[in-house]
């Protein structure tokens, strides 16, 4: 069930979203929405409990300034499995969810047994959401059943936790592969059992491979989600991750979601940005909209 994808026109359509002019009220709204959709992320070997705690505080209260109506929290904090407990302790009851990468993130080059244990442990430690990586090696060598079977097993291992399936599109290279992997991931997740809206996401990248999220790649994935919705009525979520650093980029993505899937998808249950530096740029723009001038970058806390 390969879908033909033509790169030239995908790029043309993706570029057209960036010429939408988002001003005044719609900018103010769009920026707040963008903030509420962020998965604030730290995925470094040097991550420490203290670093994760400060990230969590930032997630709950992105900015300490006085603003009406109050700014939303971000959607989730995304960490490695070993730091899930730390994050859970701070975030419990805050409404901000704990997401954990798992399945031998970012390469996934571990025995399936280890990858599944990785998931189970993260869930047991309190992860609300699991960001898994697909087996790109198997995918590129055409072993689609193997890829699908592994995704299905990971979903089963998630229990009640939501699942985000990272395709690592930078390694799949072609848009046809992106579409094929999107369809395959969605079908595989669905093969385990019914999917509630937003229970399963497809996600572009780990952030460890370049290029990470791009607009053409995201558009192709959104179209896969749209086609699946029209076929089944089930809403799959979307998470572009990596490389989205500015508020302006975030607004372009929101325009793309709006014009491809509709406003229904613009909420944290169905759309996320995987990003770290995006938060402060969004905050800076929000404050600029209020005061008419840009504040210094050091006026916003690091996470």
């Amino acid at each position, binding site marked *: 069930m390969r879908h033909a994808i*033509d790169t030239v026109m995908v790029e043309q359509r993706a570029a057209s979203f960036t010429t939408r002019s988002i001003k005044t009220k719609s900018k103010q709204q769009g920026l707040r929405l963008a903030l509420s959709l962020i998965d604030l992320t730290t995925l470094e070997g040097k991550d420490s409990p203290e670093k994760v705690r400060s990230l969590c505080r930032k997630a709950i209260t992105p900015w300490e300034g006085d603003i009406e109506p109050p700014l939303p929290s971000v959607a989730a904090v995304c960490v490695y499995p070993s730091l899930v407990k730390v994050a859970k302790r701070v975030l419990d009851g805050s409404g901000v969810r704990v997401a954990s990468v798992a399945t031998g993130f970012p390469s996934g080059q571990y025995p399936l047994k280890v990858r599944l244990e990785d998931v189970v442990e993260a869930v047991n430690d309190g992860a609300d959401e699991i960001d898994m990586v697909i087996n790109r090696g198997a995918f590129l060598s055409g072993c689609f059943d193997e890829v699908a079977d592994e995704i299905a097993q990971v979903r089963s291992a998630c229990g009640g936790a939501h699942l985000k399936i990272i395709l690592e599109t930078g390694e799949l290279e072609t848009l046809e592969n992106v579409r094929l992997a999107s369809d395959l991931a969605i079908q595989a997740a669905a093969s385990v059992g019914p999917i509630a809206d937003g229970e399963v996401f497809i996600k572009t990248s780990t952030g460890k491979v370049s290029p990470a999220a791009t607009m053409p790649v995201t558009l192709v994935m959104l179209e896969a989600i749209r086609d699946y919705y*029209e076929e089944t009525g089930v809403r799959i979520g979307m998470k572009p991750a990596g490389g989205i650093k500015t508020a302006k980029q975030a607004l372009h993505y929101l325009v793309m979601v709006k014009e491809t899937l509709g406003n229904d998808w613009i909420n944290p249950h169905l759309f996320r940005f995987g990003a770290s530096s995006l938060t402060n740029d969004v905050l800076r723009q929000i404050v600029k909209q209020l005061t008419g001038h840009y504040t210094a970058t050091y006026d916003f806390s690091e996470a």
Partner: protein
Amino acid sequence: MTIATQTNATEWDYSPAPDTTKITIEQKNKLFIGGKFVSPKSRSWFPTINPATEKKLADIACAGKVDVHSAVSAAKSALPKWSRLSGTERAKYLYRIARRIQERAREFAILETMDGGKPIKESRDVDIPLVAQHFFYYAGWADKLAYAFPGAAPTPVGVCAQIIPWNFPLLMASWKLAPALACGNTCILKPAETTSLTALRLAEVFQEVGLPDGVVNIITGKGDTGRFLAEHPAVNKVAFTGSTEVGKLLMRQTAGTGKKLTLELGGKSANIIFADAAIDQAVEGIVSGIYFNQGHVCCAGSRLFVEEPILEEVIHKLTRRLSTLRVGDPLDKNTDLGAVNSKEQLKTVERYIRCGVAEGAELHQTNTGELPAKGYWCNPCFFTDVQPSHTIAREEIFGPVLSIMTFRTPEEAISRANNSPYGLAAGVWTDKGAKIFEVAKKLDAGIVWCNTYNKFDAASPFGGFKESGFGREGGMQGLRPYVRLGGV
């Protein structure tokens, strides 16, 4: 379950983002003859309006016979000096013009949109950049004509009368002027009645860059002005872009006079989608093929041929995509379809839509929201159940109206596509490379786009077959109509 009809949880929409209208427009726009703006001897003026508001923007001079004569005389007397100038020197002027257009791009884009009704995002991102590109491109050829026509000693044709349409006012001016000037000709340009303002502003650019007096003359007016110009005995060449009807008249008029002629006329271009195509992207191609510039495009993909098995899917996806198009204030940066160029053209489009319904085709009109009370508007629409004999499948509508038909085999697609008096452009959509070449070479069209549509570039020749005209504009081929070839 369709996305187009679902209700929205969050009402996030784009706020109005209008571009400025604060540009100065002369109230009386004179003729540009011999390097100066002069009042018409005819003493006649006519109004030009903004089709999005129906408000008058300015008065435009209507050149009479005497005015046409003085413009042709100015071009004739400027010819000897200009044509003897070295190619390198002529190129310098063209480069200066191109750069000055880039510097004044925003002003040109806004004026083009106010006077013609096209969305600002198109005049800003397509028209004006292409105008500059055209002058840059032909500046490059000016000193290389000997290489374009090796051993043939190219010399200028002489005085060129250039008559252009209202759909891409400044772009068509550049398509005509840039190659003519590069080859050492002098010109009289006649813009369309409803869209004279940007051409006259281009005259300001000519003054700014010090283009010698009389090398380009711009005379505004109505149909008669164009006729006087084409008839004038001192004119050596007529270049026309517009309707096939007028093209035929011009051909009769110039026959036997020794005048060279090029015609870029109408079209009813076929856009062919095979079942193996990338459908989502093909739908993008349909949209840019027929709804670009409100369908006021001579090469618009106004006949869509879809392979039978995917008809339903294409219609569904097209309908959904049309619901995201924004029709309205052309100056708003988020507008996708602006105003129809004139009241007259709106009437024509509406007449064709009624005719399509009357002949039994099914109309699918998209409701894109409330349209402004004033102005000339037409929501994008398409017809299904169209038969090749229907008027809407044969005649050029020049509006956002698409006729969808089906085919079963490649041979049938080709013969249906070629079953038209026109032969300007065509589009082929398939994932199979071999099929692209096979089909493209059998299509009787001057331009064939493969897996894309309405892509323009100064380096690429443009022009048609059959009743779509003859002669090419753009590319090296675009030089040919403006040179005389001889032996050495």
